[in-house]
Structure formats: C-alpha cells, structure tokens
C-alpha cells in the first residue's frame, strides 16, 4: 500500500470527530482513500427527506487534484446524470488544494438546493426543469420517494 498522506488521515479524523450536519462520510474498511458518503436532501428542496448515497475517492495526487465523487442513489437533478456523475466546477477546473472533502460535500448539498438547468449534465431533466418546473419538481420528489427513502 502506498503510504497514506497525513493530509488524508487528518481530514478523516476531523470528519469523524466533527461531522458535517446532514452529511456522513465514512472511509472504507480496506481503502482509506475511498469514502462511503450519505447526504440528506436539503429542507425546502424536492429532495427533502431523502438519503442519497455517494462514493468519494481521493486520487493518488490529492489534494493537488480533486476528489472523484459520484451519486450512487438515483436522483432526478439537471446537473447529475443517470450514472450519478456530478456537474460541479470545483470538482473539475475550479478545484483548489485548499478545498477539502467536507467543503466538496457541502457544495454538493448546496447543488441539491439550487439546481442549475442552464448548465445541465442530464439534458432531458434540464429541459423539463426549464419548460415546466413544477412537473420537474414533482418528478424529483417522486424519485426521491422511490429511490432515496429506502430504510
């Protein structure tokens, strides 16, 4: 095993000791660079009440490059596609090594509160979000109920 950088150990310790409200991130038993993440749907969003699973992986050159994050739970959102890939600038060209796992997850939670259909990853979802927002929100609520409320 490649030696685990202090940075990752430190971030992991802090995530455990001072968890972010509404977010749980637990490192895998066998791979300290792989995190099982659960994000709760934000209040007053169509995702309220849902528990969304994500996977987060810290690549070899983290923190010089961004974590890889993906939704595992299906979600109806204009910036998240059917494979769970997330369209978020700080995960791509706006990454900074001063950002952390916790700031990334907070940004993802914020993206759930504020979908951005003008810069979509899931085109069909974004299209509906623009032409008929209330129906899109109904779909998002329905998907949340169907896929993210499994106890």
């Amino acid at each position, binding site marked *: *095993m490649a030696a685990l950088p202090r940075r990752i150990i*430190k971030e992991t310790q802090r995530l455990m000791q001072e968890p972010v409200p509404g977010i749980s991130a637990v490192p895998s038993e066998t791979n300290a660079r792989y995190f099982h993440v659960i994000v709760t749907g934000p209040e007053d969003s169509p995702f309220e009440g849902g528990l969304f699973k994500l996977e987060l992986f810290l690549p070899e050159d983290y923190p010089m490059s961004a974590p890889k994050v993906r939704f595992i739970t299906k979600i109806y959102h204009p910036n998240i596609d059917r494979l769970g890939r997330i369209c978020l600038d700080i995960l791509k060209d706006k990454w900074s*090594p001063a950002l952390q796992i916790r700031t990334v997850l907070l940004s993802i939670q914020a993206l759930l509160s504020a979908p951005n259909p003008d810069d979509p990853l899931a085109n069909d979802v974004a299209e509906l979000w623009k032409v008929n927002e209330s129906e899109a929100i109904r779909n998002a609520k329905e998907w949340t109920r169907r896929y993210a409320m499994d106890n």
Partner: protein
Amino acid sequence: MGSCCSKEPPNTGPVEPYVPSPVAVPSTTRGITETRVAAPKLVVDPRIVDELILELLALIASFVDNEEESPVSLVKLHVIAEKEEGWFQVVTSMVRIIPLDNPLGPSAITIVFDDCPLPSKEQVIKLTQMLGLSAMRALAADIDVQVERNICVVLGCIADKLAGPNSVAVLTEETLDYMLSFLMFRREPRIVLFALIALEKFAHTTENKLTIKERLNKEDDNPLLLLERHANSQDYTWRQVGFCAKWALDNLFTVEGRCLSYQTVDMSKINALMNTQDVSEYLKISCDGLEARCDSYSFESVRCTFPVNSGVWYYECLIITPGVMQIGWATKSSHFLNHICINQKGKIIKEGYGIGDDIYSLSYDGCRRLIWHGAKPTPVPDVEGWRPGDIVGCLIDMDAEEAIFTVNGVHVRTCTHLFEVSRRNNVDLKQSSQGFFAAASFMAFQQCRFNFGVESFRYPPNRPFKIFNEHGSLTDEQKRVVPRRITLELLRETTVKENACTLCFDADSCCVLEPCQHRGFCSLCTAQLKECPMCRAAILQIRVEST
C-alpha cells in the same frame, strides 16, 4: 459554491420495445425449488438479454481503447436493468450463460454491475429467494458449477455495491449458509474461490465481518485454516483459494492463536520483492512479497523494490490465472490510476491505467496477446494465449536497448519502445527516475507469482544477465509485508506539527506567495501550484521564509 460546468448528454441507445413471444423461458436454476419465489414477468425477450451479454463478453476480450465510448450492448443492458423486472432478467441471464471457462467471465459480470442501476435491498433479497440460496442448494448432488460460480460472483458484486446497512440486510442467514457451505465442504474449487471472495466483499461492512468471523470460528475446524493450506498448490484454482483464504485470515477473519503470515515467513533469502509502498490500493500481496492478486473491480498495479539502469536483467512470472494482466517494466514516472477517472468532457473512463498505458512503461498481456506501450496495443497474433502454469520471461538489455518477452522460453516480441522514447524526448529513462522496475497490472480476479531469482529460472535467456535477488538489498523492515489494516491503524495515530504545511500536513510551511501574500505552504506543495489555493491569484514569485 460550485456551479455546473460540463455538458455531455448521456448516450442512451434506444431499445426496441418487446412484444412477448411464446418461447419457453429456460429456468434460471436447477435443483431445489420449494422455497423459491416466482420470477417476475419478463420485460424483454430473454434471448435478447442473453445475446447482449455474450456480445459484451466478446467485446471485453477486444476492449483495448481506454477512451472508447461505452459499448452499445452495455448501454442497452443498462436501459433494460432500469426496470426492476429487467434487472432480474439481466442478472439471471448472466448467472445462466456466462461460460465457466472464459477467463473474462467474472470480469464481465462486474462490468455489467458497475454500469447497471443499483438494486434496492428488497430487490436483492427477492433475487436470493428466487434462486433459493441456502445450504441445501449448495450441497445438492446435481450441482451446476457454472451457475453456482456465477451466483457467487454476483453476490460479491452486490456486496461490493451495497456496502453499509443494506449489505447487512442482504446477508440473510440462508445466503450466508449458501456461501459458507461451499467453503466447509470444499466442493468444486471454482465455486469455493468466488464464495470466498463474496464473503470478503460482504465483510467490508463491519457488522457482516463480525457475523462471518463468528460463524467461521464456531466450526470445529475453521474452514479457512484448511483452505489456506492450498496456497502453494500446483492446481492453480486451489492455489487461488489458498491465497485468498490466507489473505482473509491475515486481514479480515483473524483466528486467535494463529500467527499472521508475515510473522512466520522466512524472508532471509529474498532480496527483491513487490514493493508494498509502491502499489495501488487494492492489490493483495502474499506474505513473501512475490505473489500478487487483484480481487477489486479496478485495474491494480505494483512495482518491485529494485530498479535497474544498466546491463542485462531478467525475471520470470508464473501465470496462475489466464485473464488480463500487463507484465513488464515501468519507471517511477508511470502513474497507477486504479480508479474510475473522468476525462475533460466529464466522461467516466472505466478502464484503469496500468503498466504499458503510458510512455514510461512496457508490458505484455498474454490473455489478449498484446504488447502495451503508451496506452497503445500492438497485437501479437502468432502466439497462443497464456494459460495457468505458463512462465512469462521478461528481459531488459540496456546495452542493446531492447526488452524481450517470452512465454515458456518461446520468443514473443523484441521491443525497443522504451529506448525510442528516450531518444525522441531527449531524456534517458534509464537514468531519470531511478531506472526500470519490474512491474505488473491486474484486472479483477487475476494472480501471478514473480521469480526475481530466489528460485532458479525455468527459461533463462542465452545471453549473460544479472539477477535482481543477487543485487538487491533490503532491511528487515522493508521486507515485511504487513497486513494493510495494521498499517492503517499505525497511520491513524499520526499527529501534525504546529507549523505544518496546510496542504499536505507533512513538511514545514515556509513559503509565501507573491503578490497575494498567502502563506502556510511547504516548498514541495508550492512547486505544484499554478495559482494561489486561497484566492486563485497568479503566483509571480515564491518567497521562502526561514523558520
């Protein structure tokens, strides 16, 4: 806060609507049926699903382009599996038709699971009931090895995908009995192997690990203790079982009174081995550091401890599994990218990068019969695919500037790529980054054993050569292959110094960025920065403060 930045529509091929035809549906399993739940109705003609799966399997064998779009068959299977009934169909079809003897069969199952929507726990429990998983099924007389092997592969995939509370719910007593029965009664090794791997995947969730461990220790003879005796078997399937059992006993299901393998293995004659500090996350390395195996779904790589930069060197590799491995040479400049990665268009590239996938490395894959360099494959159609027991010979001659691969002493190819790169880019790979290391990458469920000269070579080359094991030198500490969990525990106790770099926490912070004046970074991190991590201002100058 971040906002959306990339645009790429998901490429979902249309699937023809299915009109049920009056064909008989082959039953998915044989044997006991009493507790079995009825299969849900079909959404697609089962023959189409079968065809798509076999098409995909054939494609994986020639799936060589890392940048390729998802294969159409995989996209269609995804669409089918989006409906719950469709998911059952895809899974039961794989269980039924993935051939036992295809070296890429289990990998194909993992690829489909990786791409298809995640099932709910209810869906999985229903599947296990439909298949009637139980000790009785595992012990039935008329067992179908192919079907049971595939079921165990599927269980492993599910456990891997549903880590956490769902994995606990899915591991019902019956399903656990089913897997354990294969271990206890040591039936067909091909099933035992994948039952063991599935248990290992379930054990990623702590509660399951404790349950399984308790069950194993309750037996008079812990079945793993019997299975680990096969670790040096000449039967290559049993040997894999032995390797996995030993690994599980060292890493997951420890037994009181059993010393960990690294504490008892004799390392006195070994002076070169796989470097446990230079390996991607999931590769399993034997306690003597010479045998390696991958059971994760990513492409895993490792370099050995000893680099060479002049003269002629040779090592051999015993092929234990016939699937995709890329064995050869790498410098420190080759990166192991073992996880999903995302290209500039935001597309996930599933295949990992390994040895031979950059210009700093060269490898031979005897399954697909390809020489790899710079992520470009060169087919070698005139040789046969490798089989368990084959010996791959890897020679590098830095005077003649060539690398030669052989299989069982038969010449495969003489390659000059690595030396051409040096000439073209006006850098000497031999001298830069320490030199060349023996190195290999592994697809899921692949295993091989390296011989750096601790045993005599089976097919020594007919030119004078040097032997790693005679020139290498390692401290006792460096020779120790300590189970990962122990290393992790030690690392967790790490503390951070007061004035440590705020990016890596390793070195002292000593740099101030100009003109923005942000500070708190060490020189190593600063050297990698393009802009200030705090304010994104351009860095025009770096001022070093003395501490």
